[in-house]
C-alpha cells in the first residue's frame, strides 16, 4: 500500500504550538497592538510546474476554482482555499477543509505534464496576525516593504522574520497570515511577543 497524504483520515488537530497555554494577554493601557492566533491544522500543498502553461492554468482553475495570479508575490482565494504564487514555478495552496479528492483529481489530470504536488501540512505552522500595530511589529524583523500602500491585501512574499524564513501574506489591511517551518514556530511566537511588548499583544491557541 502506498503511503499518501490522501490516505490520512485521522485529522489530528495538533501542531507545534498546540502544547502552549490557550490564551496569553499582555496589554499596555488596556490596548492590544497585535493579536496572534494559532491557525490549527491546515492543509498545505506545494505545487510546482510551468505556471505559464495553459493546461496547468486551466486545471488549477477548473479543479480548485481558483485563478492563478499573474505575478509572483500575489495570491488568489475562494471560500476554502488560498493559492499563493511564491515563485516563478511555485505555488502554495492552503485550505482548512478536507479537499483530498480535489488533490487526487489534480494529480491525475496533471499526469501528462511536468508537475509536482507535495503535501506539507506538518512541515509548516501558520499564525494569523491582526491589529493596528501588525505592520510596525513585523517591520522590526522583516526586511520587505510592509507599507500599507505597498504590501496590500492580495500580496505575499517569501521573506525573513528575525532569524527565520517565513512566508507572509496580507488578507486585509492589518491582517496577515505568517507561515513558518514548524520547528521555528516557538521562536517566531517568542519573537512576536517580545516585539509587541511596547504595544501589547494577545495570543490565542
Amino acid at each position: 500500500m502506498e503511503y499518501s497524504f490522501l490516505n490520512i483520515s485521522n485529522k489530528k488537530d495538533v501542531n507545534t504550538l498546540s502544547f502552549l497555554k490557550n490564551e496569553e494577554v499582555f496589554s499596555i493601557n488596556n490596548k492590544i497592538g497585535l493579536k496572534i492566533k494559532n491557525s490549527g491544522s491546515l492543509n498545505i500543498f506545494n505545487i510546482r510546474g510551468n505556471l505559464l502553461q495553459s493546461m496547468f492554468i486551466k486545471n488549477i482553475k477548473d479543479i480548485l476554482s481558483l485563478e492563478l495570479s499573474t505575478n509572483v508575490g500575489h495570491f488568489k482565494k475562494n471560500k476554502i482555499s488560498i493559492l499563493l504564487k511564491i515563485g516563478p514555478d511555485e505555488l502554495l495552496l492552503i485550505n482548512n477543509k478536507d479537499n483530498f479528492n480535489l488533490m487526487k483529481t489534480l494529480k491525475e489530470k496533471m499526469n501528462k505534464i511536468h508537475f509536482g504536488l507535495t503535501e506539507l501540512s506538518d512541515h509548516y505552522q501558520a499564525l494569523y496576525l491582526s491589529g493596528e500595530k501588525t505592520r510596525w511589529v513585523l517591520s522590526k524583523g522583516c526586511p520587505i516593504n510592509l507599507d500599507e500602500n505597498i504590501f496590500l491585501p492580495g500580496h505575499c512574499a517569501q521573506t525573513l522574520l528575525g532569524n527565520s524564513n517565513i512566508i507572509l501574506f496580507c488578507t486585509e489591511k492589518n491582517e496577515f497570515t505568517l507561515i513558518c517551518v514548524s520547528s521555528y514556530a516557538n521562536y517566531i511566537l517568542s519573537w512576536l511577543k517580545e516585539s509587541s511588548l511596547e504595544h501589547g499583544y494577545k495570543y490565542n491557541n
Partner: protein
Amino acid sequence: MIKNRVNNFIHKNKNKVLFSFDNKKLEGYEGESLASALIANGIKLVGRSFKYHRPRGIIALGSEEPNALVRVNTGDRVEPNIQATQIQIYDGLKVESQNRWPSLKYDFGSIISFFSKSLPAGFYYKTFMWPSSMWKTYEYFIRRIAGLGQAAEIHDDPDKYEHIHSHVDILIVGGGATGIVSGILTANSGLKMIIADENSYLGGSLLTESDIKINSSTSSEWAVKTEKSLEKMENVTILKNSNVFGYHDHNYITIAEKCLNYSFQNSSTKPKQRLWKVRAKKVILAQGLFERPLTISGNDLPGVMLSASVRGYINKYGVLPGKEVVICTNNDDAYRTAIDLNRVGANVKYIVDLRKETSGEILKAIKKIGITVLFEHTITFISGFREVNYVDISSLSPDGKTILNKVKKVKVDLVALSGGWTPSVNLFSQSGGKLIWDNNFSCFKPLTHVQNEITIGGCNGTFDFKNSILETIEKTNLLLKEFKIKKSVNITLNIKTPKLSQTVRSIWNIPSGNKNIARDKAFIDFQNDVVSSDIILASNEGYNSVEHLKRYTTLGMGTDQGKTSNINGIGILSEKLAKKIPEIGTTTFRMPYTPVTFGVIGGKDIKNLFDPIRLTRINPWHKKNKSKFEHVGQWMRAWYYPRKNETMQNSVNREVLNTRNNAGIIDASTLGKIDIKGPDARKFLNMVYTNNWSLIKEGHCKYGIMLKEDGMVMDDGVTSCINDNHFHMTTTTGGASTVMSWLEEWLQTEWPHFKVFLTSVTENWSVISISGPKARAIINDLGCDINLSNENFPFMTFKDGKIDKIPVRIFRISFTGELSYEINTHARYGLQLWEKILKVGQKHQLMPYGTEAMHVLRAEKGFIIVGQETDGSVNPYDLGMDWIISKKKNDFIGKRSLERDLLSKDRKQLVGILTLDPTKVIPEGAHAIEDPNYKLPAKMLGHVTSSYYSPNCNRSIALALLKNGHSRIGETIFFPLLNRELVSAKIVKPVFFDPKGDRLNGI
C-alpha cells in the same frame, strides 16, 4: 538661576532636574545636554586625556566633541565613553568622569605629563621590546593603564534594543536649516520621507544663531514652528536623537535612534535604542559643517572652545562658558561669537585675526560695540593650570611662520578658536563618493556622486547661508522631478543674515610662544593626545602616507573620528612634505560615523532569541523524561537519558549495550529530507552523487555521498526510489538547508533544462528509528501490517503501511549496524507513535538512546559522520570509500577534482585507533606523531576525529585521519596530550565490532 545661565534659551520652560557629576549634585533643565548643564554649573574640568592625563574641558557643541567623555548610570546600565554633548539630562542621572585616580582634580596619572617627551607617537613600537621574555610582565601593566572608560561590572544589560526596517522615498540626513527646507519641499510633495538628526530638536545652526531672521521670525522660532508642522504630516517621520552612522550599498542607510519615550520605569517594554535599517530611493545629505580649532600651544586647556560652539551654548542652551574672552580666528564667522558674547554681558577683550584684513560688513558691527580686532596677529601660547588663565598674543610674519613681536599677555577664562570649517563628508564618502579639495575654504567637499544621493548646504561646501538655502531649493526641486511629482512645490523664505567675507587664512601649525620647549604642546587630536610634533615625527620616520600617519600617530582614530583634527593633521603633513593637500588626500571614511552601542547592533538577537532553538514534535517526551540535550546546529536533540545516580558515561554505556542486546529507539526527526520529483530525477541524482542511480528500483534505498566541486565530501545520506519520477532524499541534520540550497543552485543555474522539482519536507515527517535484535518483534507487536521478514523486507528497502491506523513509511536502513527500521510518519503523529512504541516495546526491554549512544554505535561499525570524519578537505578515497565512486558515469559534481587527488601523496586517510591501554580514551582532536622521543616542533601525522569508550568492545575505540593511513595498518603511533602525557596506540582497520555485518539481519 544657576550662575552661568543667560536668558532666552530653548529649554527655558522645561522642568528643572537634579543630576550628579562625580557625586556632586547639580541642577539643570530637563532635556538639555549634559555638557550644557555642566557649563551652566561652572564646571570646566570634565576629564583627563587619554595618554598624558592632561586636564580637559568641553570644546564643542555636538558629536564632534573629543574631550568630554563620561561614564553614565550605575550597576548593569553603566555606559562608558559617552560624549557629554550627546546625553540629555534627566532627574537622577549619575555621571562620572573617566581616566583619573583618585579624583578628577587630583589625578595621579597627570605625572605622565612630565614624561611626555618620552611618550611621543609611536613609542609603543619602540619600547617594551627587550628582553622579549619580559613581554608578559609589561603587558600586564600596560593593560591595567591602557584604555579609556570602564564597562559595567555586571554584564546583563536590562534594557531593550530593537531593529526596524523602513522603506522610504527620501531620507534627509540632518535636520538643520537646509535639511528642514528640503524637508518642507519633500513633505509637501506627498512622498514618504524620514528626516534624521542627532539632536533632540530639529534646526541645527538655526537654534544656535541669533543673527538670522527667516520670514520675520528669529531662526530659532522658525525652526521650532516648522518642526511642529512637519510632525503633523503623515508622510513624514522625524527621527530625533538619531545618528545616521552608516551609508551602505544601494542606498541602505543605518540609523541609531535613542528612543524618546524610554525611561528606566518603562524599560521592560519600551526599547532604549532602535536601529533603523532604511532603504531610500533618494538620500539628501544635509549634515552641515564642523569647525576646526587652531593648532596653538596649550590649546587643550579647559576653557578653550570652538567659537561657534560658544555661541551655540549661549543661544541654544542659555549658558555662558566664560566672561573674560579672547577670540582667535582665521575667518569672519567668529565675529558673530563676539557679538553674542557681548550681548549677554561677557567682556570680549580682543578678536585676534590671523588674516591681514576682512571686507565683511560684520566688522562694522564689531567696531560699533567697541571690540578691538588685531589683524595679522595670533595667540601663540595658552597657559593655565587646570583651566585657561592667560593667552599670549603676538604679531605674525606675513608668511605666518614666525612670531614678530609679543604684544600682550591677557588674562582670560575663555578662549574661542576658529580655524575654519570642514564639511561633514563622512557619509558621502562612505557612499563611495569622491572628494575634491577647495583651496579657498581649505576643505574637502563632494565632487563625484556614486549612489542615489545629493549633498546640500555646508556639507556640500556651500558656506554662505543664503546661498545654501537657494542651493537646497534648487536641488530638492530637481530631485522631486525624478519622482515625476505633478504638483509644483514652492517655498518662500525671506532670509536676513549677516554679511560675511568668505576669506580664510589657513596656518596649520601656529608658531609657538611657549618658552618651555619641553612642555610645548599644540594639540591636533584631543581625544588621542596627538600633538603637531607627532605629525612631524611620523613623517621623519618615513610614515608619509596619510593612512600610515593615522595608524602611527592614532590621529583621527578616536570616537570623534577626527572630525576636528583630520584636516589640521593633513595640513601639517602637506607642509612638512612640501606637497599640496590634494596629493596627501584623506584616510578612508568608514562607519560608524558616530559611536554605536553593541546593544543596538544586537537588537533582539540575544538570550532566547539569539538563535532559534528547534525542537522535534517528540521533544515533550524527551523533556518529560529528563533527557539531557545537545545542540546539533539549531536543533536541540536528546543527548542521553540519565537514570538516577547515573553519570553520563554510565548512561551512554547502558544505552549502547541495550541497543545491541535488546533494542533501542531514537528520535531521528531532525534528519534533512528532500522530496525529488520529475522525469529527470535519476539524471539529477547521478550528477549530485558519486555513485550510479540509474538502476535503483522502486522501493529500494541507496547510500550516497555528495562532493563539492573540489572533490571533497560535503554531505551523505540515504535516498530512496518511490517511483521512477519520485525520490526521497535524506541528508545530515546540520547539512539539510545547505544541501537544499546547493541542489537548487545547481538545478537553476547549471541544469535548468532538467525536469526536476525539489521540495524540503524535513519537518513534514517524524522519524523514529528502532535498532537491535528485537526490533522486528517490537514492530510486529505494534500491529504493523507489513511483512517484516528478511525475504519480504530486505535491507535497504522501504515499505508503506499502517501502525494502529497511523500511516507509516518504514525504511530498513541502519546507522548502528543492527537490524533497524526507520519509521517515518506525518509529524503530527510523531509523539503519539513514539509513546505507543515505547509502551509496546517495554516487554522487549526497548530503551530510548540519545545522540551520544548513536555516535558510539556507529563508530563501533566504522560509519563516518560528515563533519566529524570530514572537514571539507577529505575525499571519498581518503575515507576508504573507493567503492562509492562510479567508474562508469561520465560526470558528477567533484569528479574532475578527484582525478587530481588520485595523484597526490601523503593524503590523510581514515583509520581505526586502538590504545595500548584499553581504558584510555584519547581526546578528539589529539594529534598523532611517529616518534615518542619527539623534539618540538614535532612532525604531525594527523588527528583523532572520533573517540569513545565502547562497552560492546570493552575498551576505547577511535577513528583518525592519518597521512598514508591505509598503508600504516599495524603500526604503533603516539598521541602527546595537553597534560604532557604520551598515549601509545595501534593503527587498525576502522571497524571494531561485527566486521562482517552479520547483525544487520538480526541475530
